[in-house]
């Protein structure tokens, strides 16, 4: 069969990956315009933009390739009571991967969904890079190996039945977790399990036309546990003797303990131990109430942190000072310059960071925590405790939200330190205030864009991104850098930027760079990582370009979108949102589009900004193409959640730094969307295609952020440049 020609417009679809991965490894820098710089730019330049690194081999491809060597180590088991058990080496944070994987298994095995039990795997170092939950890669990476594994299992069960009945396997069918003979005889998978162990057999995954489970709307398999309160998070586990523990923390970021007088705290009811650790003073007690009261009774003199004299304005100034200058020449045509600032944003997951640790005298340790990088966490904790990695077990618990926060093992390290010091198991919980004031954040950014255009066409799009350093010092960073033959200058952050950032439009010469400043502020990847700010800013500029060129902003995007799938989602969202209708004063529609993870999403929101200080997004419409849909309900939920994140980060939720301390302390001043801020009408329209599943968990955020900013701009007649707008 002849290789198809690569689709010029549909990035990554149909490209030969190996070849381009080689290209990526050899690429000396992250930019897309290594050979085609602005020197090539003239007014007669061709408007089509060159493919970016991301379009050729994106993060998902890198993770997929890095994961492939260990796929055979995944564990699928059919038990004698007809339970299909799968240990998922990923973290369930609410994104629904447990349900989606269960659906794929049920589909390919012809098992009842109720018989499928997907559990989160403990850390398994032998899986190397195949236990990282990040970058909307889980279904992209696991979809094919899991369905093949299930198809093989089905073939072996059928062969076992064929042997037992003396019938040809081709005559047998499978349904409802059982093999059926033409004469009506039936053997359940449980009955066949032992015999199937001895069988061989390679099954072929079904064609999509035969799907009855995959692609349908299915409620979460843990929905009943959730609504009855049975779903257990780390702090709900009943680990024998685990002492509730909280930590007194410094008033400023990364401050340290000077001296401690714990005499009064020690005498308080319920207190068992008080332990100084690098991040503060831990109090372990019979209950969290006892622990918190004693913590408040500690008398501690604190030493300053590394940024005690630094406030938001200083950070903004610093970013501005180091930002690379815009380089594109100002042609005889026109150009549009815009500068954007983004505040720090806390992930603020509902479940505060928590971990249970039991470090025993025999030199072994167990830790229970929600971790996106369990293997890395295991190694980091072992190192901290002075133990061999194999002496530490990390049990991965479901997370009460993540948004990137569970990439690190900060709280697991704290719990392990305290448990080791006091010789007792502890359940360590950060309070909400701890989480706000000392938790990791999406970095603050300063971004400059210059777009030049003429005769109704965009000739160049230059984007200089300057941000506070994004911490990749977790398992994902290792995975990224180890896949490189040589280290890319700037490390994992630069690499991630290169494999995730791409301009989805033909806007002439595109050149974007990332410049980071290391300030010692705790940061971490936030849902959609760089795209949440980079692409949002670009979407604002797209609207302003359209205005300058006298074009409708949605029509303009449709004209220049690289991918046909992009044009399709824009067409669909225009149709369902009533794009172009007249709006009363102070109300407006805004559009945004984003392509990443081999998926596409367009968003239109309707905003009421009659009070510009208190705007409300009243309606939101998403059109998306993520390739093969696995769970329609789960997909819609992810697009919904990411839309709410777009609303929050653009309009109202940001963190202030005052003299080295986070000003916000809880949901009362960190203003995430609540029901009263959310649209009363929300619709998802899926365009079904047969591409292998693309990523979906982060996809809608940049599109929604752009749409909200643009709607606000139009409703208020302003040009938003600083986010969140009402900070």
């Amino acid at each position, binding site marked *: *069969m002849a290789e198809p020609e690569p689709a010029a417009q549909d990035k990554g679809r149909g490209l030969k990956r190996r070849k381009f991965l080689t290209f990526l490894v050899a690429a000396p820098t992250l930019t897309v315009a290594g050979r085609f710089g602005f020197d090539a730019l003239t007014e007669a330049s061709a408007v089509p933009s060159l493919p970016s690194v991301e379009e050729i081999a994106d993060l998902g491809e890198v993770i997929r390739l890095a994961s492939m060597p260990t796929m055979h180590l995944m564990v699928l088991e059919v038990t004698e009571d007809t339970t299909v058990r799968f240990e998922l080496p990923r973290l369930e944070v609410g994104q629904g991967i447990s349900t989606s994987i269960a659906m794929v298994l049920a589909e390919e095995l012809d098992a009842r969904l109720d018989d499928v039990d997907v559990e989160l795997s403990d850390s398994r170092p032998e899986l190397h890079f195949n236990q990282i939950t990040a970058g909307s890669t889980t279904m992209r990476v696991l979809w094919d190996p899991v369905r093949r594994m299930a198809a093989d299992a089905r073939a072996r069960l059928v062969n076992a039945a064929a042997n037992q009945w003396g019938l040809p396997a081709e005559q047998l069918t499978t349904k409802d977790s059982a093999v059926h003979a033409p004469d009506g005889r039936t053997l359940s998978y449980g009955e066949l399990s032992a015999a199937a162990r001895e069988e061989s057999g390679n099954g072929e995954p079904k064609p999509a036309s035969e799907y009855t489970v995959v692609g349908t709307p299915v409620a979460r398999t843990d929905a009943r546990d959730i609504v009855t309160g049975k779903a257990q998070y780390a702090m709900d586990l009943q680990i024998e003797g685990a002492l509730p523990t909280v930590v007194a923390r410094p008033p400023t970021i990364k401050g340290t303990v000077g001296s401690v007088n714990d005499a009064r705290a020690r005498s308080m009811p319920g207190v068992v131990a008080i332990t100084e650790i690098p991040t503060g003073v831990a109090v372990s007690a019979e209950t969290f109430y006892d622990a918190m009261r004693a913590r408040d009774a500690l008398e501690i003199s604190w030493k300053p942190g590394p940024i005690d004299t630094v406030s938001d304005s200083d950070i903004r100034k610093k970013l501005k000072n180091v930002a690379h200058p815009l380089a594109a020449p100002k042609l005889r045509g026109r150009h549009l310059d815009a500068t954007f600032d983004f505040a720090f944003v806390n992930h603020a997951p*509902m479940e505060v960071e928590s971990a249970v640790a039991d470090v025993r005298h025999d030199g072994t340790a167990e830790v229970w925590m929600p971790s996106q990088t369990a293997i890395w966490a295991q190694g980091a904790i072992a190192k901290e405790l002075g133990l061999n990695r194999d002496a530490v077990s990390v049990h991965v618990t479901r997370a009460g939200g993540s948004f990137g926060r569970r990439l690190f093992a900060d709280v697991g390290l704290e719990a392990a330190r305290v448990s080791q010091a006091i010789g007792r198991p502890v359940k360590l919980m950060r309070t909400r205030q701890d989480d706000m004031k000392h938790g990791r954040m999406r970095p603050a950014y300063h971004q400059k864009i210059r777009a030049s255009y003429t005769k109704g066409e965009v000739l160049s799009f230059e984007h200089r991104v300057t941000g506070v350093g994004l911490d990749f010092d977790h398992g994902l960073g290792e995975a990224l850098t180890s896949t490189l033959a040589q280290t890319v200058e700037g490390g994992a952050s630069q690499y991630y930027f290169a494999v995730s950032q791409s301009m989805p439009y033909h806007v002439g010469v595109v050149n974007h760079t990332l410049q980071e400043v290391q300030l010692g502020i705790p940061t971490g990847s936030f849902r959609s990582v760089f795209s949440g700010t980079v692409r949002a800013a670009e979407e604002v500029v797209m609207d302003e370009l359209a205005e300058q060129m006298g074009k409708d902003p949605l029509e303009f995007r449709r004209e220049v979108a690289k991918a046909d799938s992009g044009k399709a989602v824009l067409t669909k969202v225009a149709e369902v949102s009533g794009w172009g209708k007249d709006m009363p004063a102070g109300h407006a529609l805004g559009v945004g589009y984003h392509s990443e993870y081999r998926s596409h999403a367009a968003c239109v929101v309707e905003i009421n900004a009659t009070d510009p200080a208190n705007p409300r997004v009243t309606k939101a419409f998403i059109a998306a193409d993520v390739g093969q849909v696995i769970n329609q309900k789960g997909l819609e939920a992810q697009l919904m959640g990411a839309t709410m994140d777009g609303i929050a980060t653009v309009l109202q939720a940001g963190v202030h730094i005052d003299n080295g301390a986070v000003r916000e302390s809880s949901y009362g001043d960190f203003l995430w969307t609540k029901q009263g801020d959310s649209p009363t009408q929300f619709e998802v329209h899926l365009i079904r295609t047969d591409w292998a599943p693309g990523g979906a968990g982060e996809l809608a955020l940049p599109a929604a952020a752009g749409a909200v900013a643009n709607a606000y701009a139009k409703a208020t007649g302003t040009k938003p440049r600083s986010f969140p707008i009402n900070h």
Partner: protein
Amino acid sequence: MPKKHRFSVNGDKVEVDADANMPLLWVLRDKLGITGPKYGCGVGLCRACTSHLNGNEIQPCVVPVSECDGQEVTTIEGLADGDELHPVQQAWVDADVGQCGFCQPGQIMAAVALLQRKSKPTDADIDAIENMCRCGTYPRLRAAIKEIAGIPTDPPGNGEPPKGPPEGKPPNGKGPDGRPGKQPQQGGDSSSAEGEQSGDEKSGSLFDGIKSAFG
């Protein structure tokens, strides 16, 4: 000073030794092992711990245990009747409201309390629910509440009916080179995406099944 507090939780009489000011949340979680009510902020803002005291909504993180003496506390664990889910719980399952699920015990208890106060809540009543959901499942929360209350959820002028997965979806599978990927199966021609669209569907499925559960 610790003293004995007697009250009922989910129909069971309990007796705990606790400081009078100890928040009910920690009595439930750390002394009684009832972990449905979650800690999310400790100051009554996020409402992940929302439960009922004599049928009224409370945030146990800011209610001292002494205020519960002789009263009836209901947590998410006490809402179902044995294996029979409470109608609000069932609506939550049917609308697939939960994502990470952490806030949902509180969301459900708040919704039950709202529907008890007002059987047909308005959008403004629903907007006034302060419970945080960081996953942002607010549209489904709103839809589930309206469905239980029998309030139509499809706004006027938005007449596109919900559809299931389209018929005749194109097949999916590994690419022509034997590897999975973004490679179309039909005709081996990926130079155009024209043929890839096989249908559109509106997300009306949020509400599938709720009607049948509530008649």
